């Protein structure tokens, strides 16, 4: 029986094969692809419209920015794309690096403005740097020291340094100002990074040293510039090292090594000049912009019961601190587990059970992790870590000893961070395992063939090669953690929290704040203006993190 719907029978009759089924299938797949994207796009437009209220701006405002910013940008981008796609990607990178860098710099700045006293930071940084410099010097010297002796010396210098250096610095007669503390610490790290980056790309130690010197000098000057311009002396070095130095190095390296794409750098120039010119013209003609709810008062204001005064600042600081705890806990534990499972663990039943369970843990709902954290950390460790628990102390007539009691109170940053760490740990383990597995076995065999030990192979071959992949996975994990609400509710996070000053403070976090605004505050202004504005900030933070992950992955793929 002849049929025109394709399938098995029609293949018997070559002349009558129909493509209808295939076409329908193709478009069904397209619809499936678009469904989620379009739905999310519509939602985001809706939210952005509520938060920014674009219709409230003067038509003149749009006209000005259209002519100074949109039109030139699109024209240049189109031209670049036509001549060479890689010039365009050069331009986009040179634009994206400072943008994302600025967002990260702003996040880090909040910590040094509100939580960590810059001089204290400087003192502990120095306490850490001194033994590191000593250790590096020692390892390059000709002394032949057995490993255990070496370890002992390092541990001793660290202990001595942490006992003496902060104490000494905090009591010096002359102490660096806040801005200088930041410039010295961030500048020295950035200078070292620049030295190695330039040293690799320009062949020659001298260029690297010069680059390092320039970076250090610029960073040291930045607090003064920052204080005059109005950025502030503390954020200026952070902004310089995280946003300006990387883009400067990128531009320099493009000009030196890929001069054919230098034209791509016109894109960021056009964008910046366009925005500044537009802002200037709008001011001259006094065209009003949109009455955006998302403004600096919102981003830097404290929480409030009145929609007009409500700000996200405590939640932003809280989220930054949470991410710090999460990164500190989940990176070493997750990557360590992944490397062990892939490189060292024998392939037996136990290993397979562990691997399968890790995969299952990745799917456990976040509420459950919140409950776990509430149960273990708040209830059990709430009074403190039992160094001498009552069960042991009481029979001997001693009193129980607890330490660090405040850290594990109900809803503290530490408890919140630990809950989120548990949540993303399986994700980090799985993605790191994949990155480690992705290193070709030939490279390991080659390393063994040259007489390298297992440790040397892992250290010199596997980890460097897998590192970008590991980092991608972990950053995506962090992106997931920054948006989680449920675990925070379970551990007793507050609806209204002040700016957290320590890790013992009650947690404030962006998603939690948005959830509370949507629920506990009744007015329409909260639901239709404040909540969308908060959502936009949260999305920007998440996209910034994900863009770093994507950039790393692209780099990794190009090199691999």
């Amino acid at each position, binding site marked *: 029986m002849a049929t025109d719907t394709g399938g098995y029978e029609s293949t018997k009759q070559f002349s009558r094969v129909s493509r209808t089924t295939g076409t329908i299938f193709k478009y069904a797949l397209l619809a499936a692809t678009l469904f989620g994207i379009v739905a999310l796009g519509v939602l985001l437009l809706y939210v952005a419209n509520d938060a920014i209220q674009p219709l409230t701006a003067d038509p003149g405002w749009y006209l000005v920015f259209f002519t100074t910013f949109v039109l030139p940008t699109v024209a240049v981008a189109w031209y670049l794309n036509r001549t060479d796609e890689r010039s365009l990607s050069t331009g986009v990178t*040179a634009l994206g690096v*400072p943008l994302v860098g*600025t967002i990260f*710099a*702003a996040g880090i*700045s*909040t910590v040094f*403005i*509100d939580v960590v006293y810059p001089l204290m930071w400087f003192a502990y940084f120095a306490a850490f740097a001194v033994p590191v410099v000593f250790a590096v010097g020692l390892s390059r010297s000709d002394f032949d020291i057995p490993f255990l002796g070496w370890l002992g010396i390092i541990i001793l210098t660290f202990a001595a340094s942490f006992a003496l250096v902060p104490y000494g610095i905090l009591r010096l007669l002359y102490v660096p100002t806040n801005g200088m503390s930041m410039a010295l610490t961030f500048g020295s790290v950035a200078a070292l990074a620049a030295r190695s980056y330039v040293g690799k790309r320009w062949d020659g130690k001298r260029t690297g040293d010069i680059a390092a010197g320039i970076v250090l000098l610029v960073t040291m000057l930045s607090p003064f510039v920052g204080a005059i311009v*109005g*950025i*502030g002396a503390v*954020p200026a070095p952070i*902004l310089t090292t995280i*946003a*300006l130095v990387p*883009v400067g190095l990128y*531009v*320099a390296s493009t*000009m030196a090594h890929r001069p054919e794409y*230098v034209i791509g*750098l*016109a894109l*960021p*120039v056009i964008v*910046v*000049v366009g*925005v*500044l010119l537009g802002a200037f013209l709008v001011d001259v003609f006094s065209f009003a912009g949109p009455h955006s709810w998302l403004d*600096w008062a919102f*981003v*830097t204001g*404290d929480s*409030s*019961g*009145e929609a007009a005064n409500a700000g996200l*600042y405590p939640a932003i600081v809280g989220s930054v601190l949470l991410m710090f705890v999460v990164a500190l806990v989940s990176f070493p534990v997750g990557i360590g587990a992944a490397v062990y499972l892939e490189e060292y663990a024998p392939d037996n039943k136990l290993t397979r059970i562990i691997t399968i369970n890790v995969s299952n843990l990745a799917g456990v709902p976040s509420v459950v992790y919140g409950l776990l954290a509430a149960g273990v950390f708040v209830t059990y460790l709430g009074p403190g870590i039992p160094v001498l628990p009552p069960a042991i102390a009481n029979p001997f007539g001693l009193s129980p000893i607890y330490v660090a009691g405040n850290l594990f*109170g*109900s*809803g503290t940053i530490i408890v919140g961070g630990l809950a989120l760490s548990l949540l993303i740990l399986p994700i980090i383990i799985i993605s790191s395992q994949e990155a480690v597995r992705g290193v070709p076995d030939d490279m390991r065999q080659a390393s063994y063939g040259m007489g390298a030990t297992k440790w040397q192979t892992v250290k010199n071959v596997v980890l460097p090669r897998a590192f970008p992949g590991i980092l991608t996975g972990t950053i995506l994990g962090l992106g997931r953690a920054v948006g989680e609400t449920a675990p925070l509710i379970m551990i*007793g*996070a*507050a*609806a*209204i*929290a*002040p*700016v957290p*000053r320590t890790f013992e*403070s*009650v947690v*404030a976090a962006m998603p939690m704040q948005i959830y*509370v605004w*949507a*629920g*506990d*505050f*009744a*007015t329409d202004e909260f*639901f239709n203006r404040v909540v969308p504005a908060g959502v936009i900030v949260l999305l920007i933070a998440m996209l910034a993190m994900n863009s770093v992950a994507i950039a790393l992955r692209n780099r990794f793929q190009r090199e691999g």
Partner: protein
Amino acid sequence: MSGKSSNGVSRRKFIVGAGASGAIAIAGCTKNPAASGSEGSGDDDALSGSISISGSSTVFPLAQAMQEKFVEEHENVSIDIKSTGSGGGFANHFCPGTTEFNNASRPIKKEEISACKKNNVVPVELKVATDALTVVVNKNNDFVDCMTVDQLKQIWQGGNDKVTKWSDVNSEWPDEKIILYGPTEASGTLDYFHEAIVGEDNEHRMDHQASETDRNIIGGVEESKYALGYLGFAYYSEAKNKVKALGVDNGNGCVKPSLETAKSGKYKPLSRPLFTYPKQSALSEDHVAEFAKFWIENATSKEIVANSVGYVPLDEAEKKEQMNTLETAIEKANGN
């Protein structure tokens, strides 16, 4: 060489531009009021420390208004507030000792006092405002403006012979299912309604759409013509254009909920006192005692309590009484 120099110019331009845009982007951080507060500590304001507050979502907006005003004056005191429901706050936060205050929209229960006692937590009862619990129906509901206490009781009482349709309560009302919205079991609002309307001997039905979020109750009632719900007056007063409040007839005619009728005592039996319970031992700390005093001191403020939150403020006599209770408790806390 000429090509190089032109590149140099564009680079410089670019760096200047990027720096300027960065400056605009981050300038907000320097204006943060919290930053200046953290560094100039201890000059003219000796109060510092942190306070945690848990409890009723009904009292939450009031607590937040007080917190905002208090922190304006004492910027080194940080106050966080959880909205957990009266009962949830007592059980999970206040009695275990993790919070210094618990707000409640009903008096503390005996079981809760003894649960607190196990952890050496002594609650001090302070009345802070009066609320008018409000029964709301859909805007388009044209068949009912007022209900008697008995009718409300029929609707909300649990048991076997449950009322499910409007016509079950009054034959003149339509033959449509009543869709019920109300608070959850953790809520003091439900406890109070249970006691005042349904009666302690009977059960409050639990098959309604329950939410600790008053917004959801308003939203649910707004959606459906045959819905009925109840919630605190403050949230209703923010949504007067969305739902209709019913009058309640306690035998003396129909009385609509309002600040006036709640204050004069006419709106019965649904006008109710709101409380906050500080932990007595915490009152020995200055910042906690000062905050409690500040709250009572401002509990008569029409601007804060009535205008910005929507409850009935205390009168002078009530304030004096609460202040006495508080001061006795502070003395006891310091004496021990």
